[in-house]
């Protein structure tokens, strides 16, 4: 097994025990990138030189016996909507195609303090709007398990890079499923943390009340390690919650005896492929065999959730993306006649079609006369959905559902039909609406393509969530190794 294929926790031990150097590890990852990136197309910006410098510094520190963070020297890819000082942060959009932030996102400060090695910036759907990474202005990332299929979105590059061994771990962002869905399609582990547990300062905003940055890895321990680094209160983010956040790896337990798992019937309806249902139910059975208790529950507002999601997220997005006007940064159209012409041309040329659709929808629902019918109703439904989950969690510890209705679809299959594309989010959006933590785990294959299972826990119960995930992982003897790129 090559270095790039190993897990972060194993590599952490190897670095500590000088079984390998950080430079060797980084070189291994970059060799892998040079071998497969042409086929996978996960990266928008590759930072080889700086990564090797960072790795070198880690080796120097290790050589003088300095005690470093467990993730020191581990190569990590960063989704391209997370601000990285001095490195292009494009959000996969023409609008920010040349934009270089003068500051780091708060999570990047933590990543740097942990001495991680930044491999580069990863491809995504433009401004995080999409479910396939086909909405990237620059290129489409391919699913490492089948290069003719999408990796999912919007954190397609983040999931694909980890699945392909082009990064040991990565950071994505999740607003309606954008970490969990690509994690499911690419057969890796992806966590959307509780809203407010990871600082959003520096994350280019899509939907402020729903966005969260989260970790992606090939196994649960790696994800727990990375989550422990990035979570924490940040005074720069007023929505970040000031509580004690534990080191999730310290009490990672595989004991699922007595674990109460809720199965909501609304997530196993006719919109879900039977092969996916089977994979998930088999996985749940495994847990039951190991002492978990399964209970059928109901979350009645699920059917309306996707509508509320598109109303709320588009409304916030239409406002968050209004700042892209060609005045202070980013793209400006070349020929214009007056201010309004400059605005319209800049925004029409700088944004792709999906972004435009979301902005239009958001502007419409907030416009005069429509607020009560759309936004207000969606907000009321949001409360109902949260209350339903809260009620469910008084009976169960975690809720298990499929992550997506099917395995990864073909590139180009859904791109002409926005509603069909939106429907791939039905299992994931409710979690963002309620602000809950949820993780996607590989639970089987469908014609060779990975299928994901989602665990959901109550707010700030990441430990319960990760323990259940870890428990499942131990039962099945581990998850996928790096995909062989054909």
């Amino acid at each position, binding site marked *: 097994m090559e270095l790039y294929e190993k897990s972060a926790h194993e590599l952490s031990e190897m670095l500590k025990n000088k079984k390998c150097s950080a430079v060797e590890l980084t070189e291994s990852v970059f060799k892998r990138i040079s071998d497969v990136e042409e086929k996978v197309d996960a990266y928008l910006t590759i930072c080889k030189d700086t990564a090797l410098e960072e790795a070198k510094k880690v080796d120097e520190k290790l050589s003088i016996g300095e005690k470093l963070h467990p993730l020191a020297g581990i190569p990590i890819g960063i989704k391209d909507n*997370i*601000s990285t000082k001095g490195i292009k*942060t494009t*959000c996969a959009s023409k609008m*920010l195609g040349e*934009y270089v*932030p*003068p*500051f780091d*996102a708060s999570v990047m400060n933590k990543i740097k303090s942990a001495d991680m090695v930044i491999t580069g910036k990863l491809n995504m759907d433009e401004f995080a709007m999409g479910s396939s990474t086909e909405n990237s202005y620059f290129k489409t990332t391919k699913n490492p398990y089948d290069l003719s299929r999408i990796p999912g979105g919007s954190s397609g590059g983040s999931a694909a890079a980890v699945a392909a061994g082009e990064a040991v771990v990565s950071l994505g962002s999740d607003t309606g499923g954008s970490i969990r869905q690509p994690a499911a399609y690419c057969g890796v582990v992806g966590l959307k943390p509780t809203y407010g547990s990871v600082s*959003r*300062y*520096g*994350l*280019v*905003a899509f*939907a*402020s*009340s729903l966005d969260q940055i989260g970790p992606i890895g090939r196994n649960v321990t790696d994800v727990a390690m990375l989550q422990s680094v990035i979570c924490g209160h940040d*005074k*720069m*983010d*007023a*929505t970040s919650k000031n509580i004690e956040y534990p080191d999730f790896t310290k009490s990672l337990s595989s004991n699922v005896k007595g674990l109460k798992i809720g199965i909501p019937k609304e997530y196993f309806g006719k919109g879900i492929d039977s092969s996916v249902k089977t994979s998930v139910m088999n996985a749940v059975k495994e847990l039951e065999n190991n002492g978990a208790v399964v209970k059928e529950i109901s979350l009645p507002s699920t059917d309306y959730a996707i509508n509320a999601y598109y109303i709320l997220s588009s*409304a*916030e997005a239409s*406002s968050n993306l*209004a*700042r*892209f*006007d060609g*005045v*202070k*940064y980013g793209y400006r159209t070349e020929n214009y006649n007056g*201010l309004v012409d400059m*605005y319209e041309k800049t925004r029409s040329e700088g944004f792709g079609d999906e972004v435009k659709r979301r902005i239009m929808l958001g*502007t419409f629902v*907030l*416009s*005069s006369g429509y*607020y009560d019918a759309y*936004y207000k109703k969606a907000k009321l439904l949001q409360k109902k959905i949260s209350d339903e989950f809260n009620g469910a969690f008084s009976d169960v510890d975690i809720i298990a559902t499929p992550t997506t209705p099917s395995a990864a679809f073909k590139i180009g299959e859904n791109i002409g039909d926005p509603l069909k594309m939106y429907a791939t989010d039905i299992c994931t959006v409710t979690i963002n609406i309620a602000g809950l933590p949820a993780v996607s785990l590989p639970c089987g294959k469908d014609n060779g393509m990975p299928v994901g299972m989602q665990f959901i826990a109550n707010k700030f119960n990441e430990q319960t969530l990760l323990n259940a995930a870890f428990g499942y992982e131990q039962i099945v003897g581990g998850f996928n190794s790096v995909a062989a790129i054909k």
Partner: protein
Amino acid sequence: MNKDYEMVVGLEVHAELNTESKIYCSCKNAFGLEVNTQVCPICMGMPGTLPTLNEKVVDYAIKMGHALNCTINSVCKQDRKNYFYPDLPKAYQISQAEVPLCQNGHLDIMIDGEIRTIGVTRIHIEEDAGKLLHDEAFAGSLVDLNRCGVPLIEIVSEPDIRSSAEAKAYLDTIKSILQYIDISDCKMQEGSIRCDVNVSVHKKDEPFGTRCEMKNVNSFSAAVRGIEYEYSRQVALIEAGGTVVQETRRWDDVKGESITMRSKEDAQDYRYFPEPDLLTIVVDEEKIKAIKESLPELPNIKVMRYVKELGLTQIDATLITEALDKSKLFDDTVKLGKGSPKGIAKWILSDISKYINETGKDINSTPLTAKRLGEMVEIIEKGTISNAAGKTVFETILSDDKDPSVIIEEKSLAQNSDNDFLENIAKEVISNNEKSVTDYKNGKTNALGFLVGQCMKASKGKANPGMMKEIVEKYLAE
């Protein structure tokens, strides 16, 4: 004004708060610095940045709320007001929509000696935008974002104002209160206080007419001019058979006219919705109470008290009230009960004001204490010393840090008001100056002055000049 038509005016005042930092970031809140040097990624609206609310802004808004007798909404939120403009980096302004921090207040103003109560609909907190700079020579416009994020309170009045004079009084009072409670420096020339004007007209006993909003009113006197112009314009329009259209107009103070900016159809749809990057604002009831208790006596209330209870003229009352140092000295002195309020006021507005202007000192930290001022004024009013001697006492208090009684003693300033003493001197001077007496009796009135002067000389300046003159006149009349 056309006696058939009444005017209805509502005013929206924006005041910049004098906090240390901006409302949503820790940039220094300062004016007049080199363009685009007082900005950071947050107030510039760079992607990924987030606002954090400055607690002082909330405190100051509540303070003004108390000063204007408002109900304080201890639980409220911020909202986004969305529109595109080059001086608005995020393309939305963080403000407050339906639930402002303060509402339902009122302001008592004094106008021509009468008290009028003007309703205050609301006060809310929001951020200021940047500045657009234009130059004839330059093809485009330049944007300076320094002012982005400067904290503002917007004070909205009820449409209770009925004349341009009332509008001016209202604006002047708002300004003096803001300065009094020290939450804004109100420098009109620096733009730290601005107002928008709403005017409508209607015939007596008919319902209110359609109102027009006027922007770009850059001073209080411009507000007066704008209101009067708008009144005339609307009356003329109606008299000519036209209808007043609801619109936003731009006031041009140089040309003395207003022009259409936006019609109702073009009216901005601000698409207000709750600011998702900020949580609920909850202010402690204890804190709200403490802020109320920290309010000083407000200037408009002070003026009314000085006029109604102490007999000062509105002008003198306003002049004293406007300066915190002078009103403090005045209040402290009057409280001690020595010297008449009018007399104390006279000294403050003349010699003391002159001293303050010349030396730039804070009068409340000089040897001229309230006690000494009161004693001095009382002594003069009793006639123990002359006005001229009073000036000497005043100067000496400041230079030598001594009490009036000590100074009068040391410099023998006490004037003699003893009738017999004065009569004796008058008799002696008159008998020694027959020619002058004759001149006076022949119509040379300035002979009186000469004689009185001789009396003063004979008394070594100690005679009470007023009394001296009366006595001399009495003898001359015999």
